[in-house]
């Protein structure tokens, strides 16, 4: 499943408790729409860490990373790209050679 779909399902099931996908637009602010509160943001980061296997740093707890489906999707992409870059040189070189 695409990250966008995973995130949408997670928010719908755990915060909105509905199956209707139109209940949330991809650019709706979770805070402004009253979807999450302070503890909710923490739950989202735990979910990201478990589901996508990266850790969310304290300085990344920002609305620009976490406060909408779109922001979350962009944040996941950025983190995954960062993880790729962090791969050991040999693997990267091997991939380049193979490519």
């Amino acid at each position, binding site marked *: 499943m695409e990250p966008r779909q995973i995130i949408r399902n997670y928010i719908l099931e755990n915060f909105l408790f509905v199956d209707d996908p139109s209940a949330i637009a991809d650019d709706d602010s979770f805070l402004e729409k009253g979807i999450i509160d302070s*503890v909710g943001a923490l739950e989202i980061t735990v979910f990201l860490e478990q589901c996508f296997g990266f850790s969310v740093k304290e300085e990344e707890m*920002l609305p620009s990373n976490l406060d909408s489906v779109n922001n979350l999707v962009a944040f996941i992409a950025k983190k995954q790209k960062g993880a790729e870059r962090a791969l050991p040189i040999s693997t990267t070189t091997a991939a380049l050679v193979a490519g």
Partner: protein
Amino acid sequence: MPYPSAQRPLRLLQDSLQRTAQTFPDKIAIISGVDRISYGQLWQRSVQMANALKSRGVRRGDRVAIYLDNTWQCAVSVFGSLLADAAFVLINPQTKSDKLAYILSDSAARVLIAESALLRCVQPALAQLESTPYLLVAGPVPAGTQAESLKTAWASASDTPPQPANIALDLASLIYTSGSTGDPKGVMHTHQSMRFALESLVEYLEITYQDRIICVLPLSFDYGLYQLLMAVHTGAALVIERSFAYSAQIFNLLESEKITVFPGVPTVYAMLLAGDEKSPLRFPHVRKVTNTAAALPASFNQRLQKIFPNAALYRMYGLTECKRVCYLDPTLIDQKPESVGKAIPGTETLLLNDQGLPVAPGEPGKLYVRGPHVMLGYWQQPDKTDHMLHPGPTLGEKMLCTQDYFTADEDGCLYFVGRSDNIIKSRGEKVSPTEVEAVLYSLPGVREATVLGVPDAILGQAIQAIISLTEGADLDETKIRKFCAQRLENHMVPSHILLMPDLPKSANGKIDNKALAAMLAN
């Protein structure tokens, strides 16, 4: 020589705003997102709000309900209501339709000022009411909505301050709070009780016009509201944020806005400490860190002092019914790390046994509070009022029985022991098990339901529901949580749901919560 006080005494809550706006018209009052509002602007907008409310039918003594996020518009609505001789009723923006309808109906609000993004909860609430309040909306008004935007209302309103008719004994605010028995109750505070509490807080916290206060707590919560009142009273700057959700943003603000006062509840501090463990946090500008709403674990004291190396840490205790009861002098924190200290200036506490006699040091007693900060009572609830307000030592005086047990040491410093009722404290907010159980019982298929608080590292207490179902009921944990989330504020929705074939009963046939608590603890 003329008597030096040419200055008029401050009697009404809004008199602080008028004085500060005259003293510091250009000083920043509120920073809210990208908006920076000066005291002059806050006063002018509040006057326009008052005139707009009056021309829309608000009369002296009416209630104005405010269902807004933490924004400067919310502050303007508070002071606008007061300037219109009305009492304001702040409603938590997480409140769902049914409870919103209850509060609007119970308070008989004349006007409702609501956030545009919250109209999806407002419309179903209004549909339940026999007489609906006039609806003013902050933000865009969708086509076909019977409402007026705040902007339009202000644009046509006069800039001339209305003449106040209220005196200090008049109602300033109703603050709805959860009780141990069912529906929320409106705590009645007068201008006098709120002014007194405000000035006592400013005195012992030593707030000045140079302070910069951050408020991440909802203004609908009295601890949040008084951050606004303290700022306005002294001319300090208030940075208001919707919540502590995005902690890095709050940490950035602490630095960029050079915040000096940080008020929080134990859940906020637990999140702060968790963040500090990931990467160390230091906020050297902060001078005062305050905690109330629920007991701060003593183990937090030293760790918080590391994060705020130049701050005094205030451990406090209070309840909406008198705003604040006591605080520990920050210089005593190492000596008495668990204490919440002594009565706030100008007030007195008593620890009494069941016979109404003072208890000896170390003996638990019920905590009573005397002072001008005690509420007038619960709105239209004389029986519930009598449960909390008892005759005091002076003839005719009412003192507040907190219904909480404390001990005091030889110096008179107080230590929280426990509650005499079954109220749960989660995220610093009171949760009535009865209110949650009432929602659970309204769900078809639920046969028995009981709600308990269970220990939780972040929340203080988490809400645990234990439920048995009728035969053939098609319910599971997700369906039950969904039902609750549509009817209760987030902090009241059970975090844990346990389904059992039958709930254990005590000898008299009641659900045995003690046995359940013991079972869950194992």
